């Protein structure tokens, strides 16, 4: 009996040590992955001199907001407004088009496997392949540097992605529910709007947030299709970086603003992000 007690005591002792080690490792992991985020946010409060300090200034000396003011007065506001206009509009258009499409594929599968394959291949295509021909097509149509070209071209990745993600959510709804409603005499439209859409609302929310964030973060299309009339935030940031970054503080402030939607999405949509980014292969 003594031996058993001893063994139990020993194992609980090692357990505590292991637990402490585990927590230390988790904290180290968090520090590594959050430090760069902290660095850009803290940078947005630093005066220019602080960037060149040795040792590097870990905490900004004061919480001054000059950087935000300056960043937003030069190019930032234009970028912010354009990014907001484009991301919101693109999200709305994407959802209006992709909700019925994904429902149709999930329920009726018109065109069979080929449609799924077509959608997935577009999603996997390197965007640069689409962007060069589209540049010439849009140039011929005199559409470059307009909002319209952003609305349209962002469908290139948003539509396939949202259709693919929501298809999985619609497939999760038991067909029997809809059949029962139809037996009760509801029309197909009513079944779609009153049963399928409410039951797939999590999927719709996930898809729309992804649509928003993809449009918000996008750089390559923006750098080719935009210029003076339309300049999204990533484009404004890239210009800043290109100008051998003197105004690090302003740059950090603008980057912090650009980072906010991604941070919020990560925090509030945690459960669904893995499902989204594995194209529905992993259901968390």
């Amino acid at each position, binding site marked *: 009996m003594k031996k058993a007690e001893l063994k139990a005591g020993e194992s609980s002792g090692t357990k505590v040590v292991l637990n402490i080690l585990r927590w230390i490792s988790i904290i180290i992991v968090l520090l590594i992955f959050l430090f760069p985020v902290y660095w850009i946010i803290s940078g947005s409060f630093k005066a220019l001199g602080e960037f060149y300090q*040795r040792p590097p200034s870990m905490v900004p000396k004061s919480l001054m907001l000059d950087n935000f003011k300056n960043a937003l007065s030069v190019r930032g506001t234009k970028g912010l407004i354009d990014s907001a206009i484009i991301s919101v509009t693109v999200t709305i258009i994407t959802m209006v088009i992709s909700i019925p499409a994904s429902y149709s594929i999930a329920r009726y599968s018109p065109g069979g496997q080929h449609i799924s394959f077509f959608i997935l291949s577009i999603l996997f*295509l390197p965007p*640069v392949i689409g962007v060069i021909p589209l540049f010439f097509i849009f140039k011929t149509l005199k559409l470059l540097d307009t909002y319209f070209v952003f609305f349209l071209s962002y469908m290139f990745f948003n*539509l396939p992605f949202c259709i693919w993600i929501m298809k999985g959510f619609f497939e999760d709804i038991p067909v029997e529910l809809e059949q029962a409603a139809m037996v009760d005499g509801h029309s197909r439209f009513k079944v779609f709007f009153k049963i399928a859409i409410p039951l797939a609302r999590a999927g719709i929310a996930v898809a729309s947030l992804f649509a928003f964030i993809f449009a918000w973060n996008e750089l390559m299309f923006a750098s080719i299709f935009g210029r003076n009339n339309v300049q999204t935030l990533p484009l404004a940031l890239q210009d800043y970086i290109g100008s051998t970054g003197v105004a690090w503080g302003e740059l950090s402030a603008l980057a912090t603003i650009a980072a906010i939607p991604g941070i919020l999405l*990560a925090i509030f949509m945690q459960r669904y*992000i893995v499902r989204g980014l594995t194209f529905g292969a992993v259901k968390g």
Partner: protein
Amino acid sequence: MKSKKRQREDVALTAVNRNIFWDKKNQLAYGMIAPAFLILLFLAIGPMFFMFVNAFRTWKLAVPAPPRFSGFKNFLNLFQDLRFGNAFTNTVILMASGIIMQSLLGLGIALLLKKPFRLRPVVMALLLIPVLIAPVVTGLNWKLILNDIFGPLNYVLGSLGLGQPLWISSNRFWGLLSILIVDTWQWTPFVALVLLAGLEGIPNQVYEAADVDGAKPLMVFIRVTLPLLRPMFVLIVLLRTIFIFKIFDPVMILTQGGPGTATETLSLLTYNTGLKYLDIGYAMAMGVLQIIFMIILANIFLKFTTSSKISAQE
């Protein structure tokens, strides 16, 4: 390619759906998908057509000569082009090293988070920030951190008495390493969470059975856990291959492919060839090769996700 039996079952299923449930209303199905299909047709098929036509033509906008058909000349040139070879090698290096690094680190993090604790959802949420933050911001972040003169990383290395590399601007090795670090920072948490989902999908009975057999923890890990995680590893390799294959933003922001062309990747080279040097035919030939590769990958992915059990796991 599904097995004949499954294909037949599918056909039977859709037939049942059509007869009992969706009888004669197929117009609706097509109507619902039509807008999406038409837009994608314009955005994907249009460019595809443009690409396949011009890949077989010599068309340089920098030279005042009209485009003319040149057969396989672009492709033959590609295979002898050292710059293309360099971009291809860089992409493959990033792919291989990225997948290895991210899988190993991701597995470590997944194991750390395996046992549930109260703050775990918070930790998971915080870890997802790198994946969703705008790539421009990520690039900028790391440009500051990796700065050879005032970056915090070199300060730490310096105070540890280690060398202080020039990172981004030094040479191919350090440039590629910088890009690898950024990509690994961005994607390791995602890989970890996929593997965590895999770990949680392993039923407890499996471990209990191993315990009854008196297996040591390390043996259980090697003989039981890792084999059962295989579908997740396959998924990760597929997804990371697809994404690193088209890696663009971090390269564009960190090194612009430089110094010289040392860190150029396939996407960046295609971009430069088409939009900077305006050698459209040549860029489109590169595009065709990339499309072929992607179509093969999409096929594998589709076959894998429809056949394996991972989608069934909760």
